[in-house]
């Protein structure tokens, strides 16, 4: 079943949905919303769909979902027959939930700093320190995961948690936050960018260097 994604190309939250859709082989119909400069997300027709006036929104028939976490979970639960992107075991399922909360905290700090750097929307005070604390916590977690032979936030296969956290980490340099102090985090972003059918976005370049010259594959 396909769906319509109400999308802003510069918005990291919308990118999370586009990225997971690409990785799952889904092709949502894209409805462009001119959030900037026209404030299309505050227009009456959009508010009728999502009274909160936030992007992204996914509409599949009568089902209308807003916010990247809900849409990611729905896409994985509805379309991933392997149950790997959204694990059903209680432990991993709850861990994914915890990382979705971290992703929201990243969006409110690193993501807000990016919007400030790019579009001059003021970020909350203390956002830089909070973003760095989150990045350090992810760095330590991924370091320990790696020592245990697990390359992802939860277990040995990427989940919606990785997708939700990836966008604001990979876009952090847009906000002037360098990833150099976080080698495990940087390696994790490269692993994610090397996944088959990975989708880039402005600010996240493709991985030229990792294309195998013999096979053409990453």
């Amino acid at each position, binding site marked *: 079943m396909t769906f319509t994604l109400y*999308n*802003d*190309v*510069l918005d990291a939250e919308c990118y999370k949905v586009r990225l997971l859709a690409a990785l799952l082989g889904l092709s949502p119909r894209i409805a*462009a*919303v*001119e959030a*900037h*400069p*026209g*404030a*299309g997300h505050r227009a009456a027709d959009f508010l009728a769909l999502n009274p909160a006036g936030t992007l992204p929104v996914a509409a599949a028939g009568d089902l209308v979902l807003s916010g990247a976490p809900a849409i990611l979970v729905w896409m994985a639960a509805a379309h991933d027959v392997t149950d790997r992107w959204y694990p059903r075991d209680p432990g991993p399922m709850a861990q994914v939930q915890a990382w979705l909360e971290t992703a929201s905290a990243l969006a409110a700090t690193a993501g807000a700093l990016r919007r400030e*750097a*790019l*579009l*001059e929307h003021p970020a909350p005070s203390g956002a830089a320190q909070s973003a760095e604390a989150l990045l350090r916590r992810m760095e330590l977690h991924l370091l320990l995961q790696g020592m245990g032979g697990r390359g992802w936030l939860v277990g040995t296969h990427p989940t919606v948690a990785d997708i939700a956290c990836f966008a604001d980490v990979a876009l952090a*340099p*847009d906000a*002037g936050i360098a990833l150099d102090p976080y080698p495990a985090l940087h390696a994790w972003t490269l692993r994610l960018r090397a996944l088959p059918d990975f989708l880039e976005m*402005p*600010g996240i*370049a*493709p991985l*030229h260097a990792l294309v195998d010259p013999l096979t053409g594959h990453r």
Partner: protein
Amino acid sequence: MSRDHAVNDWYPVADTVRPGARATRLLDTDLQVAWDGAAAAVTDAAGTAHPVQIRYGHVWTCLGAAPRALFEISEAEEPGRRLVPCGRVRVRCSPLRAVENFLDIAHFPFVHKGILGAEPQTEVFPYAVKIREEVDEVWATQVRFHQPQAAKSAGGATEIRYEYRVPHPMAAVLYKTCPPRPEAWDVIAIFVQPVSETECIAWPWMALYDDESSHAEMVQFQQEIFVQDRSILENQLPVRLPLDPRMEIPTRADLTSIAYRRWLKRRGATYGAMTEAQ
């Protein structure tokens, strides 16, 4: 001083899409800009009001005592064209670097992969560049490039013809084959607001023939392209644009850039530039 030359040009400080007020900075000077949907006012911290004109979907101001005329884009008046201000993108780079990047064709297949270019069709075919003395503008003509999706209105891959025009040190206008109307040119411009010598705000603007795309689709198409350039611009060194030919070795594909730099130097438009090897 380089700023003394720059103050007599007009610069965009707001768009006219929605009424509002904004605090901003131009040539290191803090400004308040107000636009009420009909008229605009620009004042500095001392309360001095600066002249204003509304052109090409933007509020323009000039801080100097002897303003040079703002360039003409005659296509803005043509009936049937859709005028599309694309918002603003702040970039930590020299305003001149932002213009130079807009003039560069060779980066298309790498930075705008799948849209304005694609490997392996990376060749920049020979084109003509000159400074048109009668209007004192840099022009690049007979530019051709293979593009997978040249515009929102382009159905598929096409060979696109381009002309580039630099009528102002911090603005450039691109005339480009219009997919639904082969006899006309689409117009895409970049107006750059110099915040300081090392920071700028780009205000892309378009005047297109397109009967199919929604306004949001056209804006987003252009925003995606501009933000793809942003991280590259922020990582260019030196931050200010070098005008001394000994500092960088250009290739044939860089003809427009060479002419642009030479024109800036000749004009004395060196705000945001390095004039000697340092």
